[in-house]
C-alpha cells in the first residue's frame, strides 16, 4: 500500500517531474494539433449554416471552448494553489503559476470572440450583462493572481498570497456558469446541458466538443512546458538543474 504513496510523491519533486513533463508535453501538443485540425474542418466544412444567424454563428466553435477552458483552468489552478498552501509542496504552487497565463489567454479569447459575436447578433460589442461582467472579473482575477505573485520577491510568500486570492476567486466560477439562470441576461443559456437533449445540430455539437478537447490538450502541453521553465528558474541554484544536459552546454 505504501508503494503507491511513495510512487506519487516521487513525482511531487520538481527534479523527477521535470523529465516526465518533458516527455509528456510533445504528445499533448500533437494531440492538440490533430484535434484542432479536425475541429476546424468540422467548424467550417461539415457544420451547416445556421438558419437564424447565418455564418456568424461559426464563432461558437472558438468562443464556447475558450470560455469553458477559462473557467475549468481557473478551478484547476486554484486547486493546485490550494494544495500548495496546505501541503507546502513546491511543485503544486509551480503548477498553479504555470496554468495562470494560459487561463488568462482563454478568458481574453472568450471575451474577444464574444464581442465579435455580440455585434452582429445583439447589435453591440459589449453590455454590462451578468455573464459578460463575471467573465471579465475572471480575466481580472487571472491578471491579479499573476501580478500579485510577480510583485512579491520571496517566491514562497508569493505562492501563499496568490493562493489565497485564487481560492477566494473560485467563488466567481459558479457565478459565471449560473449567471444566465440567476439573472435575466442578454447572453443565451448554456449551450450544452447534461440534463436535457441537445438543442443544436449534432455536427455543431461535435465540432464544439472536438475544439474544446483540442484546447484542453493545448492547455496541458502549455502548462507542462511552462512548469518546466518555472522549475529551472526557481531551482537554478540547485545541483539537479545544473546537471541537466541542456544546461551544461
Amino acid at each position: 500500500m505504501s508503494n503507491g504513496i511513495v510512487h506519487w510523491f516521487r513525482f511531487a519533486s520538481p527534479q523527477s517531474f521535470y523529465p516526465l513533463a518533458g516527455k509528456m508535453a510533445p504528445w499533448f501538443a500533437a494531440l492538440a494539433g490533430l484535434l484542432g485540425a479536425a475541429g476546424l474542418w468540422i467548424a467550417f466544412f461539415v457544420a451547416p449554416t445556421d438558419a437564424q444567424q447565418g455564418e456568424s454563428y461559426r464563432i461558437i466553435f472558438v468562443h464556447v471552448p475558450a470560455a469553458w477552458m477559462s473557467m475549468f483552468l481557473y478551478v484547476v489552478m486554484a486547486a493546485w494553489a490550494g494544495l500548495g498552501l496546505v501541503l507546502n509542496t513546491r511543485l503544486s504552487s509551480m503548477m498553479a503559476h504555470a496554468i495562470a497565463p494560459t487561463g488568462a489567454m482563454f478568458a481574453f479569447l472568450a471575451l474577444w470572440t464574444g464581442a465579435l459575436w455580440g455585434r452582429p447578433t445583439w447589435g453591440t460589442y459589449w453590455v454590462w450583462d451578468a455573464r459578460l461582467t463575471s467573465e471579465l472579473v475572471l480575466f481580472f482575477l487571472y491578471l491579479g493572481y499573476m501580478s500579485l505573485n510577480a510583485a512579491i520577491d520571496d517566491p514562497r510568500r508569493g505562492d501563499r498570497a496568490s493562493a489565497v486570492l485564487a481560492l477566494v476567486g473560485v467563488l466567481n466560477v459558479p457565478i459565471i456558469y449560473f449567471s444566465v439562470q440567476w439573472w435575466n441576461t442578454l447572453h443565451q443559456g448554456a449551450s450544452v446541458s447534461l440534463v436535457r437533449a441537445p438543442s443544436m445540430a449534432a455536427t455543431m455539437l461535435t465540432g464544439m466538443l472536438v475544439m474544446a478537447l483540442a484546447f484542453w490538450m493545448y492547455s496541458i502541453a502549455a502548462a507542462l512546458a511552462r512548469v518546466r521553465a518555472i522549475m529551472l528558474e526557481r531551482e537554478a541554484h540547485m545541483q539537479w538543474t545544473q546537471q541537466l544536459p541542456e544546461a551544461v552546454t
Partner: protein
Amino acid sequence: MDTAVAGGSDVNWGSASEFFAMGGYAFYVWGSFVTAAVCLAVEVALLRGRRRNALALVHGERMRNEATA
C-alpha cells in the same frame, strides 16, 4: 477548397471567395479565429523564450559555482 470532397464541402461553400466572405460576417468570424490563432502562436513563442532564458540562468549559476569552487 473548390474541389468536391466526400462528406460535402460544397454544402457550405461554392467557391473560395464565398468561404472567405463568410456570408458577410468575414470581419467577425475571421476576427475571432485569427485572433485565437495569434494568441496561441504568441504563447508558444513566449514559452520558447522563457525556456531559453531559464536555461541561460541555470547555465550562469553553474559557471558561477565552478568559478568559486
